[in-house]
């Protein structure tokens, strides 16, 4: 968790992401936001060096269209609950409040579907720290790129103006 806050990790990640971006730009001219998102996540997982479960899960199954799969799963679940008789009290459904929230958390963090509460919280803290670093690095790169394109025309003018 502490390693995601160091500047060195930040530099490593941003440089790797930039290189991956260059490579993807050179190979395929059209890059969608989703592809970029995936490559950014994969580079983040690589930077994690395989110590955490979520990083391994990201690297293990990157090429599937995950959104379609999720929709199928959700449909199945709703059908089952409708067929059941509403004998179970609403109290019992609401009692494992913490359990439901843990389930939601399991869905959010990749690769933690069947993890215990204890390990899930550990993975979550590492995942949150990594995501924060990802956000910082991507904002920095975006700024660099946008400033780079804005600079090129103004630089010449600026130098001429000073001289």
């Amino acid at each position: 968790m502490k390693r995601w806050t160091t500047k060195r990790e930040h530099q490593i990640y941003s440089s790797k992401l930039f290189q991956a971006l260059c490579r993807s730009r050179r190979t395929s001219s059209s890059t969608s936001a989703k592809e970029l998102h995936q490559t950014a996540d994969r580079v983040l997982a690589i930077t994690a060096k395989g110590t955490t479960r979520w990083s391994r899960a990201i690297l293990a199954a990157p090429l599937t269209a995950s959104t379609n799969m999720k929709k199928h799963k959700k449909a199945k679940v709703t059908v089952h609950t409708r067929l059941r008789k509403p004998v179970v009290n609403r109290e019992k459904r609401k009692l494992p409040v913490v359990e439901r929230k843990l389930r939601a958390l399991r869905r959010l963090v990749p690769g933690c579907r069947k993890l215990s509460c204890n390990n899930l919280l550990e993975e979550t803290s590492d995942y949150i720290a990594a995501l924060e670093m990802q956000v910082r690095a991507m904002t920095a790169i975006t700024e660099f790129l946008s400033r780079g394109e804005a600079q090129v025309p103004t630089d010449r003018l600026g130098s001429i103006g000073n001289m």
Partner: protein
Amino acid sequence: MADFSEQSYRQPFPFLDIDPTMESLTQFAELNPQSFILDNSAFNFQTFFPLSINDSLFSNQASQGETMSGFIHNSNQSSVSAQPIFSAKTEVEEISNKRKALDILESSSGNSSSSSPQVSETGIKRRNNSGRGKRAKSNEKEMEKPKELVHVRARRGQATDSHSLAERVRRGKINERLRCLQDIVPGCYKTMGMALMLDEIINYVQSLQNQVEFLSMKLTAASTYYDFNSESDAMERMQRRKAEEAKELERLMREGYVGIGGVACFHSSSTYGPL
């Protein structure tokens, strides 16, 4: 303070009068622990009588509990008589622990504290608290460690079977992880329970993921205008630029142009860029 210490050393001498009876009682206690526990109340009544004299001496001092325990320590070292009392008492606690009789211990303490109202109550209660608090807890911990392999601090009045201990360990681990998360996730208060904390965590993770998605869209938009083929040493440039900006910021901070002036200078310097 020196006078008090002198007097404190004088006080244990009256113990010697009751010595032989006490020693015989303690030896008797070792043989018959159960009967000793029942007679504990009467036993304590006798021992506390000399201590009441000392209590009046120390009544004016603020830190009475500490001085009482300190005095007891001194008396332990100086006089032999005080030792069997405390050793007997600790043995009683050990025996009661061996039989998982924490209730008996508490009831005996309750009896002793309630059955001696005539003798100075504050002294007894303080002695009870300081003696039992420091010794009882340590004895309980010591006795519990060799029994269970899990190193858990079993507090007074809590169940000691392996199931509840394991649960306590598990809960302790989960709470520790939750505390780590509390530091990371903004907007979490210590008073929040598990459910609220998880709510906050879920919201934060979702917001971070949305941010990443938004930034990826922004990046793709920004990268379309960028000429990547000429960017062989782009990373060097980027890092150089960042270092320069950081240095300039530091310089400006030092000179005191932190306010609007600083921002204006920063802007002007940034337009020049890495040439």
